[in-house]
């Protein structure tokens, strides 16, 4: 008989990256056409204190519960000061937010091929900044190195293929270089993106370790679930960032692999991790997902047009540990994994029925037996100014309408159902990061404390974006309080 599997814990990580917003896909494309756009964009980049005080970020890091956010009036970006006593390196119960100086330092420490060069003066600043951080080991500070003379960096930037790196205030702090002259898969922008993913995923895993939720020496496998494409021209997207993250997190006995499924990736990886543990292949599998640098500033145009700051100015990472039953942690119900099969219709209704109703029916449960649903949790303050609406709210209203259609609730109870079993979106619009898993650490807290009995993670993926199929996808999993 398959073993019971639990989610021991989950942690998050945020890096404030206003200086990298220019390398988000949308800003980079627009700036290539209209360089004069930069001053207007730069003027709306938030200082670190504002990013640290921003309520959705505080929810992502566990300092606020999503239900608290529902009570904070919009605009949330109007909250520019953290509560008194909040430290500079904003730490929530679930993770850290680091400033861009520390991010560049961490990325340099993660740079195995000396492709990211920092100026001597900034390297000193990054080392100083990093040495203050509780998660940074002396070895990390050492790996930042002494930096390069500014003239050497200027020389590299004078040649093709190197990208200048800036802080929010426009100060040049270094450059990212390509690793090959003729390989578009190893171009500077691609490597910068992959390095940012590695660092953010790695820091989330290191937070899990630092908080005593994972013992690095005992982790056997690390599944990476991000949407980055690590590889070279012969194997674009070859992958296994999982093992690269395991290395930097000190999981010396682990190997790894990547699980790719667009935004469903993290939920798919949790299912695979659960199956590996249930089958006895491994006892402890970590699931990690790092940032999507390409999505920085993705909807900046709407933000500028409506008086918002550039909301998409953070890179995010997530990590969780899946283990054998410990009698305490929430149970991952592998007998109730919801999937959207090829033959199912692609309408939202069909997807929700496949993901939410069907797996619950298999257990003799109804939608109302789930205390919280975590769907796509995009922060509406990021999406609404660009005309994309409030994605989670629409998802929750459709789930509630499904419950009403099944006579679980009356039509006039839809709003109350949404308020009770849904939550406001709070996640950075970082693709797979925003998909259900930002609630995972909150879910573990609530299920362990028995404030919650059941939580469903429900992810959807836009497979058609890759042009290999017209289909969407979806996957769901159910977490239950451990009855021992």
């Amino acid at each position, binding site marked *: 008989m398959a073993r019971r599997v639990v989610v021991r814990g989950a942690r998050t990580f945020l890096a404030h990256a206003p200086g990298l917003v220019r390398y988000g896909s949308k800003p980079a494309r627009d700036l290539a056409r209209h360089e004069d756009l930069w001053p207007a964009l730069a003027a709306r980049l938030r200082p670190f204190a504002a990013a640290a005080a921003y309520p959705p970020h505080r929810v992502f890091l566990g300092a606020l519960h999503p239900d608290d956010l529902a009570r904070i009036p919009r605009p949330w970006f109007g909250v520019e000061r953290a509560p008194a006593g909040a430290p500079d390196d904003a730490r929530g119960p679930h993770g850290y937010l680091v400033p861009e100086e520390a991010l560049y330092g961490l990325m340099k420490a993660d740079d195995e091929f000396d492709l990211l060069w920092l100026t001597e003066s900034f390297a000193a600043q990054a080392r100083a900044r990093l040495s203050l951080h509780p998660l940074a080991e002396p070895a990390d500070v050492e790996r930042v190195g002494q930096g390069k003379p500014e003239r050497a960096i200027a020389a590299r930037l004078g040649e093709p293929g190197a990208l200048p790196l800036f802080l929010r205030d426009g100060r040049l702090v270094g450059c990212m270089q390509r690793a090959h002259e003729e390989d578009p898969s190893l171009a500077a922008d691609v490597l910068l993106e992959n390095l940012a993913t590695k660092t953010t995923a790695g820091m989330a895993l290191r937070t899990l370790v630092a908080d005593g939720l994972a013992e690095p020496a005992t982790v056997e496998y690390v599944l990476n679930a991000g949407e980055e494409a690590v590889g070279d021209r012969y194997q674009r997207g070859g992958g296994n960032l999982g093992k690269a993250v395991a290395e930097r997190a000190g999981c010396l006995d682990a190997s790894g692999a990547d699980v790719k499924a667009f935004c469903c990736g993290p939920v798919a990886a949790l299912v695979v991790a659960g199956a590996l543990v249930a089958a006895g292949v491994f006892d402890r599998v970590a699931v990690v997902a790092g940032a999507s640098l390409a999505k920085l500033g993705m909807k900046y*145009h709407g933000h500028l047009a409506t008086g918002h700051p550039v909301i998409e100015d953070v890179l995010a990472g997530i990590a969780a540990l899946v283990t054998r039953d410990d009698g305490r942690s929430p149970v991952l119900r592998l007998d109730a994994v919801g999937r959207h099969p090829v033959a199912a219709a692609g*309408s939202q209704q069909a997807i*929700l029925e496949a993901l939410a109703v069907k797996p619950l029916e298999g257990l003799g449960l109804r939608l109302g037996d789930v205390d919280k649903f975590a769907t796509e949790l995009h922060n509406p303050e990021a999406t609404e100014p660009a005309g994309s609406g409030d994605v989670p709210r*629409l998802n929750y*209203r459709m789930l509630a*309408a499904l419950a009403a259609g099944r006579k679980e609730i009356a039509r006039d109870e839809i709003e109350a159902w949404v308020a009770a079993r849904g939550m406001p979106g709070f996640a950075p619009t970082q693709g797979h990061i925003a998909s259900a898993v930002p609630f995972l650490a909150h879910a573990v807290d609530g299920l362990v404390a028995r404030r919650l009995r059941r939580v469903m993670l429900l992810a959807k993926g836009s497979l058609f974006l890759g042009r290999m199929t017209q289909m969407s996808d979806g996957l769901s999993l159910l977490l239950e309080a451990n009855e021992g």
Partner: protein
Amino acid sequence: MVLLGTPNPESSRLVALTLTEGDPTWAGPLAGVRLELPVFHITEESIKAQVPPEVYEAQVGLAEAVLDTRAIRETLEDVRARAGAGAKEETA
């Protein structure tokens, strides 16, 4: 003709204006391009009536139940009226 499945009045207006007067945000390649295409939303009665009820219910029913269909309809009527007025001005 273009059929929308947009989730709210704001996004409906943005897309509809892009397809009639040109991108109002001046962000994309359709900035300043007057396509003047007729734009409707899938939940508008004149469209809904042309879809077999069982297909409509299976594909759109749940979304229709939770969208502000009245506000979306009014938004698109407004955009179509503007586009119609613009077209008349140009031909006058």
